[in-house]
């Protein structure tokens, strides 16, 4: 905990211009990740988790804008960097793995050449031959059988799992300090997902890179993360070590989500689902973003008049954004 964070994001706000007005996709989000740590960013679609990743890497679409916030990484604020400075960092210090490995790979280029390109972009002294050689080593490292041979394939010949391994090979090519993986296994079958999560784990062991894992899947979070940030309506509503989050959730959204996940083990009863659906974020509520779906609110005015801050709970590093976070959630669970 005392360790200096590798990346520290403070008060991030991102808006999108849409025909109906302004979407407040991210609203004052804080997060930090330490060297070598696996941070899970978990939330439902539209909660702002992917937008956060894109904002950090300067990859927001033209309609999106970082309106507030800082992102300190190795002594520099990512939001204050020029395009060319950011280009230096992307793929070298921070790399990204996306959800769909097919659309992220060039269909007309051999896989090995694409991995080699990731190396050459950041190291002009590297010869073609050395880059190709290193690409094969990387593909081997992520578990591609007969990597030297398969490096000559075009992506369509590879299965989804193999393509995602190739993406991971590219992501680790320049030994980044941080890898951001956005739903890296969501498009994959469950047996393949297990293999990819193993590869990500092995790679981290080997390179010591930190990992931000963006996902909607609480099972994946429980399997691989050290620490978790739960995002709802563009805000961080709870953050804790993975054990505290699953063992003692303090925010009603977190506990509702946990209760809503069907499991292949344990008791069969599915608990009362959270009513309603996630907010659209066209207007920015003054109170708690979760108030209209919350069972704990029960007519309390404070929930709609005052936005709850993320504040510390008993355990170190555990914070929850609920005015009544200390109340037992037993009636829900």
């Amino acid at each position, binding site marked *: 905990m005392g360790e200096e964070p590798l990346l520290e994001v403070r008060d991030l706000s991102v808006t999108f211009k849409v025909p109906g007005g302004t979407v407040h996709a991210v609203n004052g989000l804080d997060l930090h990740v330490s060297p070598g740590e696996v941070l899970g960013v978990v939330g439902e679609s539209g909660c702002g988790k992917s937008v956060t990743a894109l904002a950090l890497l300067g990859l927001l679409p033209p309609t999106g804008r970082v309106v507030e916030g800082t992102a300190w990484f190795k002594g520099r604020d990512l939001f204050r960097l020029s395009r060319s400075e950011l280009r230096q960092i992307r793929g070298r210090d921070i790399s990204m793995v996306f959800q769909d490995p097919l659309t992220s790979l060039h269909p007309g280029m051999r896989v090995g050449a694409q991995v080699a390109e990731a190396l050459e972009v950041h190291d002009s002294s590297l010869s073609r031959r050395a880059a190709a050689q290193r690409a094969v080593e990387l593909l081997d490292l992520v578990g591609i059988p007969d990597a030297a041979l398969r490096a000559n394939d075009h992506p369509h010949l590879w299965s989804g799992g193999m393509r995602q391994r190739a993406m991971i090979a590219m992501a680790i090519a320049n030994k980044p300090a941080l890898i951001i993986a956005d739903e890296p296994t969501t498009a994959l079958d469950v*047996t393949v997902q297990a293999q990819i999560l193993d590869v990500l784990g092995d790679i981290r062991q080997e390179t010591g890179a930190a990992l931000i894992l963006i996902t*909607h899947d609480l099972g994946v979070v429980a399997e691989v993360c050290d620490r978790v940030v739960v995002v709802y309506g563009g805000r961080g509503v709870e953050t804790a070590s993975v054990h505290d989050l699953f063992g003692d959730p303090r925010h009603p959204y977190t506990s509702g989500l*946990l*209760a809503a996940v069907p499991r292949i083990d344990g008791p069969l009863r599915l608990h009362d689902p*959270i009513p309603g659906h996630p907010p659209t974020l066209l207007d920015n509520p003054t109170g708690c973003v979760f108030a209209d779906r919350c069972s704990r609110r029960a007519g309390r005015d404070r929930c709609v008049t005052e936005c709850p801050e993320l504040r510390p709970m008993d355990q170190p590093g555990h914070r929850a954004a609920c005015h009544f976070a200390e109340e037992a959630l037993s009636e829900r669970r």
Partner: protein
Amino acid sequence: MTSDELLRVEELVKHFPAPGGPVRAVDGVSLTIRRGETLGLVGESGSGKSTLARCIVRLIEPTAGSVELDGVDLLGAHRRQLRQLRRHFQIVFQDPYASLNPRRSVGDTVAAPLHVHGLYDAEGGERRIVELFELVGLDPSQRRRFPHELSGGQRQRVGIARALALNPKLLVLDEPVSSLDVSVRAQIIVLLDRLQRELGLAYLLIAHDLAVVRQLADRVAVMYLGKLVEVADRDKLFESPAHPYTQALLSAVPIPDPEGRENRRRVLLVERAETGSSGGCRFRPRCRKATQLCEDEEPALLPLGEDQECSCHHTDMTVPEG
């Protein structure tokens, strides 16, 4: 045929023509569903589970085999007969956005099956729509809205209401919750469970998410490359899976609880071989139990004790864990 049996599928085959030989998407599948029962059908992408479902409801014409609903042959039925028979079996699709007409109010969408079957009349029809909306937990005042004005969960409720309009006996649910958010997914699971109990419906539930299947299914069939490799009672399947593929599948599902995660063991699979080798067990190239016998002879789906069938030559062999 026993009287509580609703659906009987025998040796269903669907081959798609392709350069380099037909793709055997469904390659001889037999199954039954009892009245009011849920059969879960699980398998990974490309296993043929959606093709099987579409063949059963004849959205795709099967290559061979038979499908009987309540003793009536569905595959032999002519167009007009089939349309009449469709009252008894309906399908709910994965993506409620793609499967609803964007230019039609959701009330009209739910009413459409009634019109098709000549069951919509001025006073009774409107009442039925309101009833259906209430049945699936939608506010009837929303029936003049269009799909884009509803959330994903509400759209899926519309899809379910449409499927229920004609009082079917069987609903085929093709990945009914997989495009929905976690919190909304739970609502739809609870809804499907309630509807089944209230209406006595039978479900064929197709899903890749084993945890969802466990919530709803009475029995589970596991499909691999066009064939069923295991069929068992729900608890039997989740507690003591017999086929190495089922074992691998179950052990790969992430458990949403970090306690004890260091000690979890996975049943490892061999990386899938590129070319489909002909003959023998189709799971053989990925199986860690595979022997010469598996190469020579395709295992049949055979009873294994009570309430469980499995197609593996080596159910008594222990598999190395990883």
